[in-house]
Structures are given as structure tokens and as C-alpha cells.
């Protein structure tokens, strides 16, 4: 009987993480996306990320809207909480969930249509409120489920599979997020897990809204000559100047770095990192510089990838609203709902 179930093979030396789980424990059900879809690679990167971060599956909440991208939460971490919302409405659902239980790790998966057509309004407000979540846009430039019409991220001049060029200017989610004051903005490519996994780890650990725009080729409708979101085009135009390495927060290590030179530093896990002075035009903590860098790269036809901007100081939704530290579920009922007398007393305070 033919099968497309990914079998569990009891191979002896399967690596386990600090929780004693194997990478297979972070998988979901078998993908029903097209063979070769970039989204499946992103799924694999997410699986690897949570495995390596030793994240308890039950601490993860995975949410999505509608579209090929929004099917993918099914394909990772079966043991996580999940919510598949109405088209484009994933950000408000996360906002609500996050307000109720701030201890979970929220990962929202969306697509270029879900986020930048029908759901744009929700996306921009989630960024504005700095909802503590990882927001992944699986960006392929087309509506795959409806057979390849251009989406809002399709570049001017890129063509459909049948050769018709697009002439409506695109929305760039990275530029959008930067202009809205997002605290973590990154771009990556589904075909480059070496970059994507460290960015995902940083996003999970980031306190605030972390947007990752992942170019994810649509194998069926946007992987032809003339596409600007194909595997080939990305490999020819990806600009990845800064290697991404994720290090867990740990005791500080200091090293002297003479201007314009390199130094090797041994990390806590024994690995050795080579530090180099940053290129002059690049500082991921400087919003203006980041924007300039992106515009310049774009002008020369390149697609800059990597962790493009990060602000670790920005207040998140809970800080802004001065919410209670405990997740609501952990509050005793009398605190959560103190009763009519408390309400009356509260209202009196406004008189």
C-alpha cells in the first residue's frame, strides 16, 4: 500500500534536547502543500528552532488566517495550542490570546495575501501595539490557492506563469514594519535555513512584535523565468552580508575589537565566533540606517536579508497597558472578578 505518512523510525542515536524530546516530537502532520513549496522548508526551520530552543510544545500557540501559508501550523508542533482564524484576522486573535495569557510563545503564520490585502489593517495595529509575538509572512508574491494571481507583494514587471507582467506597485512588508516602528524586522529566504533558523530563534526570544518576511517560492505558480520570487531569482539577488548566529542570553563575555579588524571569541557552548567590525552602512539598531540600507540595496536590484532592525528597549503591549504580570488563568477568581462591591468602589474613584 503506498503511503505518504512520514514514518517514525526507531533509529537508536536520535539527538534529544534538554527536555528529552527529539526533533520528530516537534513535527506536525504530513504537509498537503505542493511538493517543493517553500512553506514546507519554513515549517522545517520552525521545527528545528523549537527543538533547539528546548521549548515545551504546550507553551507554544500557533495561529494563522487563510491561505497556503495558513495551512502550515498544522505541519509543526502537534503538541502546541492552535487557532485557525478568519482570513486576515490572525493578529487580533493573537492580541486577545496574548492579553489573556502572556506566558505563551505566540507564533503567527500568514501569507502575503492574508497579511497585506485582506488583513493589512490588523497587521499594522499589531505592529503598533508591539504585540509580543513572532509574525511570519510566507511571501511568494501570488495567490497560490486560487491559481497564481498577483498578490500585493508582486514586483512591478514580474510576470505570471503565462507571461503577463504586473504593473501595480508592491507593498514591501519590511518597509511597512520599519515605518510603523516595529521592534524586530527581518527578511529571509525559505531556501536558506542557515540564516532563517537563527533569526527565528532571536524572534522567539524577542520581547515584542517580531516580523519575519520570508520569501517562499510558489513552486506551482511563481517559480518560472520572469518571477522575482523564484528559487533561482532569490539565489541570484539575495544580499546576505551579515551572518546570523543566535546565542542564548548568558553571562557576558567581553573582548577588545580593534577598529576595522577581526577577533575570535569562545562562546559558552565551546563554539568559536569570529567578530568583525560592522560594515559602515549597517547597524541593526539604527532605524534610519536600516531603511537607507534597504532602499540602497533595492535600488541596485538586490534583496537584503538578515536581521535588519532590532530595538530591544521598546515597550510591548503589556508594558503599554500596564497589565497584570500573571497570566489571567493563574489568577484566583476573586482577583480576576472581585465582585460588585469592588466595581462600585472603582467607579466611585472616577467621581
Amino acid at each position, binding site marked *: 500500500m*503506498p503511503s505518504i505518512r512520514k514514518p517514525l*523510525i526507531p533509529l537508536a*542515536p536520535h539527538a534529544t534536547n534538554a527536555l528529552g524530546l527529539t526533533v520528530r516530537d516537534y513535527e506536525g502532520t504530513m504537509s498537503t502543500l505542493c511538493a517543493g513549496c517553500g512553506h*514546507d522548508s519554513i515549517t522545517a526551520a520552525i521545527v528545528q528552532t523549537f527543538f533547539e530552543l528546548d521549548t515545551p510544545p504546550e507553551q507554544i500557540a500557533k495561529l494563522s488566517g487563510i491561505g497556503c501559508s495558513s495551512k502550515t501550523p498544522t505541519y509543526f508542533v502537534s503538541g502546541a495550542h492552535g487557532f485557525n482564524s478568519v482570513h486576515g484576522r490572525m493578529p487580533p486573535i493573537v492580541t486577545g490570546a496574548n492579553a489573556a495569557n502572556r506566558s505563551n510563545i505566540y507564533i503567527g503564520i500568514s501569507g502575503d495575501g492574508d497579511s497585506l490585502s485582506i488583513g493589512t489593517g490588523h497587521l499594522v495595529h499589531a505592529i503598533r501595539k508591539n504585540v509580543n509575538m513572532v509574525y511570519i509572512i510566507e511571501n511568494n508574491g501570488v495567490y497560490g490557492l486560487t491559481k497564481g494571481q498577483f498578490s500585493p507583494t508582486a514586483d512591478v514587471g514580474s510576470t505570471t506563469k503565462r507571461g503577463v507582467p504586473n504593473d501595480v506597485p508592491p507593498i514591501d512588508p519590511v518597509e511597512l514594519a520599519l515605518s510603523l516602528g516595529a521592534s524586530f524586522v527581518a527578511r529571509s529566504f525559505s*531556501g536558506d535555513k542557515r540564516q532563517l533558523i537563527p533569526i527565528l530563534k532571536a524572534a522567539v526570544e524577542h520581547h515584542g512584535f517580531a516580523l519575519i518576511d520570508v520569501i517562499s517560492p510558489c513552486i506551482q505558480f511563481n517559480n518560472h523565468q520572469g518571477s522575482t520570487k523564484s*528559487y533561482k531569482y532569490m539565489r541570484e539577488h539575495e544580499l546576505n552580508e551579515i551572518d546570523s548566529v543566535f546565542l542564548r542570553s548568558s553571562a557576558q563575555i567581553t573582548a577588545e575589537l580593534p577598529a576595522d579588524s577581526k577577533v575570535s571569541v569562545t562562546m559558552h557552548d565551546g563554539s568559536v565566533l569570529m567578530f568583525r567590525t560592522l560594515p559602515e552602512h549597517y547597524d541593526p539598531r539604527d532605524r534610519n540606517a536600516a531603511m537607507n540600507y534597504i532602499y540602497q540595496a533595492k535600488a541596485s536590484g538586490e534583496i537584503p536579508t538578515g536581521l535588519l532592525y532590532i530595538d530591544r528597549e521598546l515597550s510591548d503591549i503589556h508594558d503599554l497597558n500596564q497589565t497584570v504580570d500573571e497570566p489571567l488563568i493563574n489568577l484566583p477568581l476573586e482577583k480576576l472578578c472581585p465582585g460588585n462591591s469592588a466595581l462600585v468602589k472603582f467607579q466611585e474613584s472616577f467621581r
Partner: protein
Amino acid sequence: MKPTDINNPDFFHSVVDCQWACPAHTNVPEYIRLIAQGRYDDAYMVNRASNVFPGILGRTCDRPCEPACRRERVDGTPVAICRLKRVAADLKGDVSERLPKAPEVANGKRVACVGAGPASLTVANDLLPLGYEVVIFESSLKPGGLMRTNIPSFRLPEEVLDSEIESIVGMGAEMRYGSEITSMKQLLKEGYDALFVGSGAPRGKDLQLQGRRDGGEDRIHIGIDWLQSVAFEHTTEIGKRVLVIGVGNTAMDCCRTARRLGGKDVKIMARRPREYFKASPWELEDAEEEGIEIVVNHSPKRFVIEDGQLVAMEFEIVKWDEGATHSEVLETITIPCDDVILAIGQENAFTWIERDCGIEFGKWDMPVVDEITMESTLPGVYFGGDAAFGPKNIIWAVAHGHEAAISMHNHCQGIPVSDRPPVGMNLVSQKMGLIEWSYHNDYNPSARQQMTHVDLTKRFEDLSLEVELGFSAEQTAREVERCLNCDVEPVFRTQLCIECDACVDICPVQCLTITEDRDDEMDLRRFLTAPAVNLDEPLYISSKLAQTGRIMIKDENICVHCGLCAERCPTAAWNMEKFVLQLSYAGNSNNKGK
């Protein structure tokens, strides 16, 4: 790195671990699939094409295939290949129409074989259909060699032996029973076009200790001679207390036979610890199940003879160092016994080959034989089986027979014997449609099926009662699904790959990697998705990929051939293709019997 040369049949062949390990290169996965489909006749014929004696080997083979089986690396126990072979042989219908036949007109060449064991019979099997006249000289009165005399009938029923031998002899071999060859010179004079020596290693080693010649000779037996005498019913009983000296499969056969002839207290006496035994683990288990005691670290010292009677044997209890190379004697112990059977090995005996007849002898007084052509230093004279390189086993004898037959055919037809017919391969896509493969690609987690044995009490009533009952239909159905179909192999076409990572992501055993090319394999292995623990299995390395110049690597160690890489590949760069090794036999008839 140099890309793997997949045009050389050896690479894909080496991935089919069982077939690669089998001296006769039996197409194991193919016949297991045929058994799964209930096509027992076809399964039998696939077997017969390469190993000639499926029914016999399905019970007695030394199974070099099973330790090699990939399943062992996956869940710790190999597929029960040998016993599945027996299923095909037991359940087949009448295949007589499909067996090779001698042509009506002979080709005018006469060849002779010395000994009617598996090696000579294989030569006859290959040469008779080509029109050769084959004369087989056999010193005893029945064919089969050690298969008949040395393997007790409770392991190999006589009917099975007779019917498989008859399928060869029945083609028209001229059998000269009871005619022992005593002179090679004489035989050479008889004018055969080619000679094959398959006379085995017929001499059991003796143990020259104090007391060996002091009167107890009638109760001290040489293992293989004693087994032969039991097989021909000259010996029908033995004393109650029996000591068997030796740690090989013959020793196990001796002690189990002794149990059936009246031995109540039968012991295997071994000098070294159990891990150094030559016997297959399953034969040890079978012996122990029958109440045979295995005594280790006992080194034989002398036979104790009183009044011209064997009464006991004296042993030194020894302690071995690590690696069991040196020992020290702890104490001496006397174990009373009625009989001693010596099963400490066999030797070749070529007393009948004159050393000046042109056949050169080398180390250990063994003939110098070419390992590929099986030719001796005298053109036209070939050796095979235990006679060629010392005691091995049946499946090696068959492999030698096939090669010798090719040489003899070449020799008779004026073709240089070094001119071996080519080994070919065929790759056939197994894709039937979306999520549809021609084979069971799903991994089946069943455990290895246990063989059912006849009750212990019944076993000792009849010497010829076969102990193993064979797999039931249900067991067969479960066991065939354990086979990983290693011959249905992922084949990579570099130029089609778009580096989407789909195969790497889906692989359930993480055996695929796309990475930068490196010069050194050990260096490269560090960058594998799951660096292999087992370095013996090769890496399948592609040429440089079009988009990034990286390379695709497949670690052959743990691939379970589930086909998911090919299923998830959008461009069919990975495809599951059935590898068929096209072996050649004498007369270059590929896939004989199919």
C-alpha cells in the same frame, strides 16, 4: 569531492546490502516482494537463478545476508531472509516447466566433476543447458556431498535435498556413484575437455592428546565422519554421556544428533569464551533449547582410558586475558563420559592429486586457485567449494560453481577464461502516480518473526523429524513487510534539482544534506544533517548543483527507502528506481530461469 559513479553497477548494488553480501548475489528484495504477492513460483525461480538450491539454503544457509541487512541497522534485527527463502521453496507449485533443460543436441564437449556436492552440481546446472556432457564422480552412493552427510535430516529433510538435486541431475548428468577418484593423472588422461574439482574438505581434524590411541578409539569419533555414518544409518546409537569438542556449526549438528541417538547428558566443550564461537548464534540457541550444555574455558588435556575403555576426559579450566589470546590454567577437572565427538575443523585432502601433474600447490598444501576464474595452474582444471580455499559453506560453493562454469565454458569454446561476461544493471522508475509507488514504501514497525519449533518431547522420537516448522501464512505476511526494499533506490539527477530542500525536510531519518563541497570525506561528514555513526556505509555524492554550486549528499547508512524524498521532489530530481543486477552465467545467459 568526486561525485559518486552511479553508472558502475557496484554502487547501487552495494546499497542492496543483502544481495551485496550474498556470495551468489541472490536478488533478495525482489523475491521477498514476490512472496508478499503470493507468487511463490516466481520467488523460487528468482532464487534458483543465483543460488540454485533455495529449499536447501532456506534451511541451512550460513546467511551472510542477514548480518548485512539494513533492517538490523534500523531496529536491531535483520529480516528473516533465510526462512522466507524456505517459504518460497515450500509453497511453490510445480515449476518443472520453468527449470533449465538440456538441449536435444549436445555441443560435443565433455566435462567431468569430482564430487557431487553443491559446487559440482552448480557447474552441472550451468553447463548441461548449454549442451555439455557432464560426468560426476562421487565416492558415496548418493549425491549431495556434505549437504547430505553433514547436515542432519532433522534440519534438512531428505525429500528437499533429493528434489533439488534431481532438478539438476535429471537434466542428464552422468552420475558415477561409488567411484572414488584416486589419481588426477589418470583422470586427465581420460580426455575430458575440462575438469572441475568439487571434492570438498573431507577430512575431519583429529585431536592427538594423551590416551587417544590407548584403547578407547571406538568411542572417540571424528565429527563429520560420525555424522556421515549416521546419515547412512551405519550408526544408530550413542552413549548417554557425550562430550562434543568444538565450537562450529558441525559441533552443534553433532550434539543435536547425539541427543537423538540416545545421548542424555550432551555437552559442548569449548576452550574459549562464547563470543569466539564459530557457530551461528541461532545454531547455538537451537542446541541449548534441546538441553545441550555449553561449557566454556575448558581446554582438553587427555582422554582417560581405563581397562581399554574410554571413561572420562580431562580438561584444564583456563582463564583468558582480554581478547582471549593468552590463558592461564586454574585447575584440572575430569569429566566422565561415554563418547567423545571431535568437531574441531576440517582439512582438505588432495592425496589423489599427484604433485607433478601440473597443478601447483601453495600455502597449507592447498592448490593455487584464481579467485575469480577458479582456475588452477593447469588450464582446464578448475576448483570450487571447500576444495578451492578451504571450508566455507554451501552458498560459497554455489558462487564458485557459477564462476567455474563460466571458465569451463570459455575454456571449451576457445575464449580466454579471464574474459568474464559483463555484469549489467537496469534502473526502472517505480512511480505509478501521485502518492503511488509500485512497492510498499511505508515503514512497517513489526518485529522479526520467531520460528516455531516442534515440541521438545517429539523431537527426539524420530531422527528425521524436521525441527523448524517454517513460517505460517501470518508470520510470512508480517515478515515480508519488514523488508525495506533496498533495491528500490532513490536515484538523483543533478540537473533537475532546484534546491528547494523538500527532500531534506521530509526525510524521516535525516539522511539527506545539501552543503558546500569539501575535499575530504571525513570533513564533509561533519556537515551532514545527521552525522553518521556508521562510517562503513558510503555517501552518495552528487555533482555540483546548478543554482548554488553546492552538492547533494545521501548517507546510505540509514536510508529506509520510504520514497518520501522522491514523493516530495517537485522536479523528479530524486526518483525511486528499481535496481536490477544483471548477473551473467556460463553462456552469458542473463536472468536464467526467468
